[in-house]
């Protein structure tokens, strides 16, 4: 579906990562897996360091920490927030939604909108789309978009397919109206028939938590996982990305009437280096235009990978200048989306550590 927004901008973005760092090489020692193959995975996929929370840290902890940092620095005023959108699939509670939890902890004003969206690796784009729509309301001048997951708490430490690559993070993006005549083009797509490729089967209403759903099961290749843990069919996801994302980007550029070489950077979700290199090759752009090293520094932190690329790869540049970028997210749902826009001259664009 094609979408278009006028006179909206990203004012700045802050990413909060846990101070606790784990290494791929050390994690892989816990598995019965040849060292030579681990080294090859590290080299090809780009897995190395990742940031994970402790066992009791929730999304609201990271978000409150980050928002207080913004208030202290004067980058955002508490009373300016007219809408708070939280995109997460690892909420603090089933009820109430996490945006209200953050609202209460920060003592925000009552005359505002609080909203939570359950979206995975496309979540940042879905959140931006929602935020831009809210900015059409006269009374909404500033939207805060929190996109955060603590997925490390929902993966089995005995599942080699996923445990050594997942990271946690919280991104906080401020959206506002743009006085310049900027145009944002976006495309969103979904295929719910393939939802089984990335899923946590138990713990919701369909298969409520019991001692059985929490029990580790032998899932082959020496891996153990409970039904309450995240399952990922890596090969099916790889296929999905290679098949669906290139035509999405093509349609997006066509929608915007923009040639491929007018785009300065392609800032994509960051599952691993291999997938992004293949994606860059497939859409025939230089690999340098599609940064791919977030996973090796922070791990795959779900929807927050896109703001992490902005801050990690283009941090200083986006404070000084404006760049034309194509954002692309893809993941559980399955959902995938792209957005073409000018970003830059940010008020802030940095990464801080949560201790």
């Amino acid at each position, binding site marked *: 579906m094609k979408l278009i927004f006028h006179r909206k901008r990203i004012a700045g973005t802050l990413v909060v990562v846990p101070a606790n760092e784990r290494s791929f090489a050390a994690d892989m020692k816990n598995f019965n897996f*040849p060292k030579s*193959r681990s080294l*090859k*995975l590290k080299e*090809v*996929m780009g897995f190395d360091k990742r940031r994970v929370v402790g066992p009791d840290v929730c999304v609201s902890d990271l978000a409150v920490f980050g928002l207080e940092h913004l208030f202290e620095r004067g980058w955002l005023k508490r009373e300016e927030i007219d809408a708070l959108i939280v995109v997460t699939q690892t909420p603090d509670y089933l009820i109430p939604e996490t945006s209200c939890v953050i609202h209460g902890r920060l003592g925000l004003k009552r005359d505002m909108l609080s909203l939570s969206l359950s979206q995975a690796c496309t979540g940042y784009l879905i959140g931006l789309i929602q935020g831009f729509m809210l900015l059409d309301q006269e009374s909404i001048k500033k939207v805060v978009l929190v996109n955060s997951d603590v997925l490390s708490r929902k993966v089995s430490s005995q599942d080699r*397919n996923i445990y050594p690559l997942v990271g946690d993070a919280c991104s906080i993006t401020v959206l506002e109206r743009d006085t310049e005549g900027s145009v944002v083009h976006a495309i969103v797509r979904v295929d719910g028939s393939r939802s089984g490729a990335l899923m946590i089967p138990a713990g919701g209403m369909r298969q409520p938590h019991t001692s059985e759903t929490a029990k580790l099961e032998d899932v082959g290749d020496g891996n153990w996982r409970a039904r309450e843990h995240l399952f990922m*069919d*890596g*090969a*099916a996801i*790889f*296929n999905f990305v*290679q*098949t669906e994302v290139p035509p999405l980007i093509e349609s997006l550029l066509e929608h915007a009437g923009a040639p491929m070489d007018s785009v300065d950077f392609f800032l994509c979700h960051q599952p691993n280096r*291999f*997938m992004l290199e*293949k994606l860059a*090759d*497939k859409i025939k752009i230089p690999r340098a235009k599609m940064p791919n090293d977030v996973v090796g520094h922070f791990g795959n932190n779900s929807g927050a990978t896109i703001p992490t690329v902005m801050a990690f790869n283009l941090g200083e540049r986006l404070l000084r200048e404006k760049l034309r970028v194509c954002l692309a997210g893809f993941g559980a749902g399955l959902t995938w989306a792209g957005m073409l826009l000018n970003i830059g001259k940010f008020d802030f664009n940095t990464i801080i550590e949560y201790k």
Partner: protein
Amino acid sequence: MDKPEFYQRLAEILDVEEVKPEDVLKEFDGWDSLAILSVLAMADAKYGVSIKAEEIRSVVSAQNLANLVEAKHKPE
């Protein structure tokens, strides 16, 4: 499709000198999730063929794999 060339590409992915048509894929030490992704990427980049993950898991020998790619491959 140039079959010897396909087996050579497969050998590079599996990190071995040579792959014969009758070789059973599962018996290679290097036949793991990364190798499967590499085969998917190779089939896509070199032959313009999209193979599904289920399809690749159901093949036994190197020849089965070559046949699967060839069946989908449409020469330009």
